[in-house]
């Protein structure tokens, strides 16, 4: 296959003056992966359709990447990378089917078709689907099957929909590569052994299955947005992966209101990423953020997605309601313009849908801004014995904030200290400790007997 000319690319440089000092192996590797990643969804959906076996199709897609990593640095990127990758994958598919114990009738038929194709010197490119929408949707429903654990669904979705390698997923979740690779192997085995139907669910099943997909997408986004462990407040790449899946879903399943609602929520939350931390990486609270750093392009996309969710009758959806709350913030030019009564209303509506003490806690914050700290503290005190919030650092943190506003500094300090002890993120811990320390001195100023 003729090498494609790529002016200025690492691959061309490598071919022309190998080994060039300027081009590291990592540059070349990234270039190969970048080309593969363009083809990956189409490759995977076409192979899945052909083989009726998603786990095998996924293996072959990865094998095609390994082959490209081996060959392209030497040969250059082929002019039709999709055809090259498909040819490799199909050849490997035949090997697998011939060698494997998989002598089920289905595989015999597939193997025979593939052999005939090989003999007929086919145009590999024509085997690739042009419109991958329906196939991609089937794939997403398979990767996010409720039979799989949430963690397994997240790993599979990142790999199959976003084309992440096992190593990239491991780094994103701060886990050893072996853990992720085992998770993926096990999930694929579950998919193979359970004989789960590879199809888009219909009717009543659809909404239940879609909820399972949206849950995973939101999990991935949130993992990036508020990394629960470790020193980094943000791992924005996971946010982008979640956003990307949201965009995929809304473009291939455009009638699903909640998919638009979730995309709106992610776009609107994502718009604040640049404003959420200072130069030292310390978190900046919403009300203190520089709104000039909020991404207006992303806010517009979020507002549009929210409007779409509403047009489809989904204004009261779980994600759409949360997006509506974030939209209230996004559209306020200054913190003072935040429509707190409206936000408190939206939380109340959300609370009628989902009985969650976390939502109630958030409602308390909005009520505090709308009606004053005393009204909010009453809600918070009712949550004090919620088992679900026992280890949730934001409960004492919100309580501390309200107590501080009521001038009850000593109680506020104790609350912030309790919050700091519960916070899992080091930076958040430091912020809470600092607030406790500031209150310590405020309390001493007000109460000389504590000196």
């Amino acid at each position, binding site marked *: 296959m003729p090498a*494609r000319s*790529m002016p200025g*690319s*690492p691959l061309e440089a490598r071919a022309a003056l190998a080994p060039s000092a300027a081009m590291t192996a990592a*540059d070349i590797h*990234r*270039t190969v*992966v*970048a*080309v593969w*990643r*363009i083809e990956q*969804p*189409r490759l995977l959906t076409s192979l899945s359709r052909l083989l009726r076996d998603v786990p095998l199709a996924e293996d072959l897609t990865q094998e095609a990447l390994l082959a490209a990593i081996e060959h392209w640095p030497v040969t250059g*990127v082929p*002019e039709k990378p999709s055809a090259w990758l498909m040819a490799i994958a199909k050849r490997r598919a035949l090997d697998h089917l011939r060698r494997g114990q998989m002598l089920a009738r289905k595989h015999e038929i597939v193997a025979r078709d593939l052999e005939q194709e090989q003999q007929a010197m086919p145009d590999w490119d024509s085997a690739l689907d*042009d*419109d*991958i*929408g329906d196939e*991609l949707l089937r794939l997403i429903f398979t990767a996010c099957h409720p039979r799989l654990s949430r963690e397994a669904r997240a790993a599979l979705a990142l790999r199959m929909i976003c084309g992440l390698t096992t190593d990239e997923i491991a780094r994103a979740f701060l886990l050893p590569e072996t853990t992720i690779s085992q998770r993926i192997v096990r999930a694929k085995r579950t998919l193979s052994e359970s004989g789960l139907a590879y199809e888009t669910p219909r009717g009543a099943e659809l909404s239940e299955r879609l909820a399972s997909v949206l849950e995973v997408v939101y999990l991935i986004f949130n993992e990036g947005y508020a990394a629960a462990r470790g020193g980094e407040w943000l791992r924005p*790449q996971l946010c*982008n992966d979640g*956003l*990307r*899946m*949201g*965009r*995929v879903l809304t*473009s*291939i399943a455009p009638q699903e209101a909640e998919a638009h609602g979730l995309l709106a929520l992610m776009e609107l939350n994502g718009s604040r990423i*640049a404003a959420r931390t200072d130069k030292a990486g310390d978190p900046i609270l919403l009300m203190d953020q520089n709104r000039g*750093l909020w991404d207006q392009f992303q806010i517009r*996309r979020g507002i549009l997605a929210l409007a779409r969710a509403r047009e489809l009758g989904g204004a009261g959806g779980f994600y759409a309601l949360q997006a509506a709350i974030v939209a209230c913030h996004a559209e306020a030019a200054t913190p003072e313009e935040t429509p707190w009564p409206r936000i408190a209303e939206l939380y109340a509506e959300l609370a009628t849908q989902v009985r969650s003490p976390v939502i109630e806690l958030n409602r308390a914050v909005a009520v505090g801004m709308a009606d004053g700290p005393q009204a909010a503290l009453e809600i918070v005190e009712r949550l004090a014995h919620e088992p679900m919030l026992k280890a949730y650092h934001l409960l004492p943190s919100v309580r501390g904030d309200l107590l501080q506003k009521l001038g009850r500094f000593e109680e506020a300090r104790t609350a912030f200290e309790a919050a700091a002890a519960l916070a899992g993120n080091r930076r958040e811990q430091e912020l809470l400790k600092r607030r406790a320390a500031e209150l310590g001195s405020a309390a001493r100023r007000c109460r000389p007997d504590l000196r």
Partner: protein
Amino acid sequence: MRFMNIVTSSQPMRGPSPALAEAMHKLADREIKAGRMLDSGGLMPVSMGAQVRITDGKLGVVDGPFVETKEMIGGYAIFELRDKEEAVAAAVEFMQLHKDHMPGWEGTCEVRMFASPEMEDACQVDARIAS
């Protein structure tokens, strides 16, 4: 990372051939469904536009066509991608379509990264070098 890929050409502006138009449409559809492309658009010929310039401290509005302009921007696409290599790969694929479906056409697809707060430092380095 967000990128804008901008197509420019010094050739007299003409629309894409039907084959190229169809290929570009397919590509855009695929990239949108893959959640990679955020926006794209083609621009009408510069003769239909205008330029607002500041020269010698004076502000002026000039209607097209502009004889002195060499490179015309024909269109753009905005992507959200992991790295520059992905943006370059997208540009290569896009230009390959032109090569396949509109022989004789010459032009450039420029890959530009959006500025972001994290990039501020990098720009300051540029400014220091320039000054």
